[in-house]
């Protein structure tokens, strides 16, 4: 079972849901894996005081020029769709942070002046406690292309575990990378026009990808039904409502998960999980 957790924008409570869901499933017969794929700002580890058991660097190939071989023909500049190479006054300049490692330039260079060389783009850390594993990806500072690091985190997925994937905010390329191939996507939103707007975009993306989804309303207030109306209209299940309460926000800010600060949430998250299992089985 692979469940991705996404939201249109940052700060809606993805990690709040992901961490509490993972903790609520700890006594299930199957092991639990939490994958923190918010690689620009991984923060799930704050909630689990576990020692990192291992870490592994993620590399991507980028071109390196051998100036003695280069004939300044400009072929590489022409082929690069990302402007990662520029030819100026007989110097070839490579911009590693915009290179997408497609390999076009070194395949097409007529003189083999370009050679792929590894560039560190991030790291994947693993911590373990009993049957629970936390895998966190971190994008290296100065790097902007997160999908390769997300893929490296997802390569650690264990098919026999319940895998929970906490993704980056947004509905762009990195989010596609986290929902891809998952059985279900939990969308965390809040009852505001912005929340709705981002939810609509995320639901549209998931429909295109053919991934079933349900909604968690965070910071819910009884008098506001903006998300309810949309979900009813689209036939989307509302899996859980987390009310707007200062106690919740306060504990969370201190690095305490929802189920730890108030154990009565645990059966609710368990119920959420069982509902997801049922929805997937359908």
């Amino acid at each position: 079972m692979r469940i991705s957790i996404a939201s249109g924008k940052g700060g809606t409570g993805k990690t709040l849901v992901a961490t509490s869901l993972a903790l609520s499933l700890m006594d299930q017969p199957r092991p639990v894996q939490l994958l923190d794929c918010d690689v620009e700002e991984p923060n799930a580890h704050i909630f689990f005081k576990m020692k990192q058991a291992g870490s592994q660097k993620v590399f991507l190939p980028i071109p390196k020029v051998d100036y003695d071989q280069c004939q300044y023909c400009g072929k590489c500049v022409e082929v690069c769709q990302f402007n990662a190479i520029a030819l100026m006054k007989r110097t070839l300049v490579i911009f590693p942070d915009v290179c997408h490692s497609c390999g076009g330039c070194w395949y097409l260079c007529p003189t083999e002046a370009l050679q792929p060389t590894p560039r560190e783009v991030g790291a994947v850390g693993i911590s373990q406690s009993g049957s629970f594993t936390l895998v966190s990806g971190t994008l290296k500072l100065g790097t902007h292309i997160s999908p390769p690091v997300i893929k490296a985190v997802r390569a650690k997925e264990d098919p026999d575990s319940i895998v929970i994937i906490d993704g980056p905010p947004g509905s762009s390329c990195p989010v596609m990378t986290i929902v891809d191939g998952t059985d279900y996507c939990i969308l965390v939103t809040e009852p505001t026009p912005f929340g709705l707007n981002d939810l609509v975009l995320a639901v549209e993306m998931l429909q295109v990808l053919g991934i079933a989804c349900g909604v968690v309303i965070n910071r819910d207030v009884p008098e506001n039904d903006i998300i309810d109306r949309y979900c009813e209209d689209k036939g989307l299940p509302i899996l859980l409502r987390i009310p707007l309460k200062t106690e919740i926000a306060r504990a969370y800010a201190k690095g305490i998960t929802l189920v730890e600060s108030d154990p009565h949430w645990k059966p609710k998250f368990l119920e959420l999980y069982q509902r997801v299992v049922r929805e997937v089985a359908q």
Partner: protein
Amino acid sequence: MRVAVSASGQTQLDELNPRLGRCEYFVIVDDVSGETWAIENTGRLSTGAAGIATATLLHNHQVDVVITGNVGPNAFTALEAAEIKVYTGTKGKVQDLLEQYRNGNLSKASGPNVGPHGS
């Protein structure tokens, strides 16, 4: 020598657009011939790294000096490799900035002054 100003229009009476990679036009003045003309900044339409594409465009138009507001790290590296000097201003009409440049009242950028995405 050719001096280019990042602008929102095509004449010397148009305003400076301080965003190098995103400006609509460059108004170019040739000091020797005294000619003025404008080129469209096609670099701004590129999906990523607009600053690099813009620097390449200026290089292809044999520009020696560019007057703009914000230069990101990649654009700065590209302009440096192209041996294009960068002078920065804040606002005003193209002709005012050219005037300030000629009087030595604009400062030369010695490095990028904004982050990678122009922010």
